[in-house]
């Protein structure tokens, strides 16, 4: 079994993945409380997310025999925390190739391999952050990661080209130059996210409306980006439970099937300054394999969740995943075309696609994409706050800069 031939390009490539379509289902989802600075730490936030995901699935902690999280991004709800929190001591298959960002899409691939080889049957993927509480300790906020790169510390930071809002403002301006993308088009993405957050009970900005007029009147942060183009900084987290399709049928909630997975990378890593195609993301390498594995195309997608640290990153991924031609992300995003209801009753085949129906990193919570997958599962079960009518196919686009990933999910 193999997926479609990996995409090749001179500035990056796809990861070759085995075909795991239809082998794994997501059977439980849980969100911790999302907030600004709360005094909680990431481990206890992760524990709350896992408790809620297991309750959603109708499973007990001892049913879990696999745990996925990301190491090296701060303390996480790891195997020691799991056993301490739940009072268990059974053997756990553990993978550090889990968590959020791109791994929120590729964790089901790790789960599929573990299930195939008999290493685990029920796996939990968890991610949590306490960056709102820890903000004061970090160089440039989440920029701390980039400040550790000595080439950046010596060639970019001394000239003020730092941190992320500056990188993506520079990318946005070049995109505007090359394709005519406008502030109002970036604003349409921020406004759609905010409208979804306003209708979503767990969104940090659920009580703060934002119109396009208000967006355009807001001051610049890193021109051409406004604060509203940039993600929140949050405490929060989420988790989801995976198992094989055979086991999934007996559980509390209808299983959401994993239909396709893709992953790609940029040769220049997170050195955006040197990325050959400056106004693109590695989704150009990731998405084709996921579409092929799932046997669907962008036209089949009912609900989309894109990693949106900045409006321009969501816009570029819309283009790079094939929802529109390269350079046409701006016109594609205009008006209400990304709203869950299209600004009115949405019918299949109408233009646009519902994007980040929970509010995304921009307006829901900065939990790095793990809540994007939770939202898609709720949409496909038909239990979302901003429900897209008869959603059959949901897709997550993950992004780190160096890498991108694609996860295609199907209705039970």
């Amino acid at each position, binding site marked *: 079994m193999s997926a479609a031939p990996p995409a090749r390009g001179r500035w990056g490539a796809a990861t070759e993945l085995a075909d795991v379509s239809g082998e794994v289902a997501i059977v439980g989802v849980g969100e911790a409380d999302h907030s600004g600075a709360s005094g909680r730490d990431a481990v206890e936030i992760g524990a709350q997310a896992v408790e809620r995901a297991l309750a959603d699935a109708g499973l007990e902690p001892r049913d879990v025999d696999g745990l996925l999280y990301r190491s090296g991004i701060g303390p996480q709800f790891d195997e020691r925390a799991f056993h301490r929190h739940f009072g268990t001591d059974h053997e756990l298959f553990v993978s550090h190739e889990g968590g959020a960002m791109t791994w929120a899409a590729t964790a089901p691939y790790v789960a599929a391999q573990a299930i195939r080889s008999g290493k685990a049957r029920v796996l939990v993927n968890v991610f949590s952050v306490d960056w709102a509480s820890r903000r*004061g*300790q*970090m*160089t*440039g906020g989440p*920029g*701390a990661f980039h*400040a*550790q790169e*000595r*080439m950046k*510390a*010596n*060639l*970019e*930071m*001394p*000239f*003020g*080209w*730092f*941190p992320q*809002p*500056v990188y993506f*403002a*520079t*990318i946005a*301006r*070049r995109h505007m*130059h090359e394709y005519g993308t406008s502030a109002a088009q970036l604003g349409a993405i921020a406004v759609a996210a905010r409208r979804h957050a306003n209708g979503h009970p767990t969104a940090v900005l659920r009580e703060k409306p934002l119109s396009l007029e208000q967006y355009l009147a807001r*001051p*610049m*942060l*890193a*021109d*051409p*980006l406004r604060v509203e183009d940039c993600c929140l900084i949050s405490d929060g987290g989420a988790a989801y439970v995976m198992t094989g399709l055979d086991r999934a049928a007996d559980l509390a909630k209808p299983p959401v099937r994993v239909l396709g997975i893709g992953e790609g990378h940029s*040769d220049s890593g997170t*050195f955006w*300054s*040197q990325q*050959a195609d*400056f106004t693109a993301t590695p989704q150009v390498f990731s998405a084709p394999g996921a579409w092929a594995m799932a046997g669907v195309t962008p036209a089949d997608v009912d609900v989309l969740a894109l990693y949106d640290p900045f409006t321009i990153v969501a816009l570029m991924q819309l283009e790079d995943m094939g929802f529109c031609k390269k350079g046409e992300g701006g016109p594609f995003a205009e008006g209400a075309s990304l709203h869950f209801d299209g600004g009115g009753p949405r019918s299949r085949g109408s233009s646009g696609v519902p994007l980040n129906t929970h509010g995304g990193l921009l307006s829901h919570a900065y939990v790095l994409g793990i809540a994007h997958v939770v939202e898609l599962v709720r949409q496909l079960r038909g239990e979302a706050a901003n429900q897209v009518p008869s959603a059959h196919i949901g897709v997550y686009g993950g992004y780190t800069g160096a890498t991108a990933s694609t996860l295609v999910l199907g209705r039970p």
Partner: protein
Amino acid sequence: MTSRHHPLPDVGWEPLAGFWAGAAAGELRLPRCGCGGFRWYPRDRCRDCGAAPYEWVRTSGRGTLFSWAVVRRALYEPFATLVPYATGLVALAEDSRVRIATRLVDCDVETLRIDMPVHAVFAPLSFPGVDGSVPAPFFTPTR
């Protein structure tokens, strides 16, 4: 890593010593591989030919403004007193694939245009409350 991250470059760090030595001499020096291509950012092996050796060569110091941001609110503490300032990427005249991160100086940020000609000017880089300064290349529009 704390908010007291030292903002001045480490001019003694071997991979970039040639860059800062060039700036001290008023030259924009960049690493060029034996195959003729620039190796930017410096790395152990050439991405094109795989060779290891490279040398620091003087460039024209000229280029075009590839893109930029105007930072209107302090995002990084050492620059708090400089806002608003323009920072961006310059595409080198000799090879536009080479992009140099810089701060745009001696200009009205409202007059900046994508792909406009710019050139390097050398000045001491320093930060309030931080001892010392380092000669560094900034860029300014070419009139």
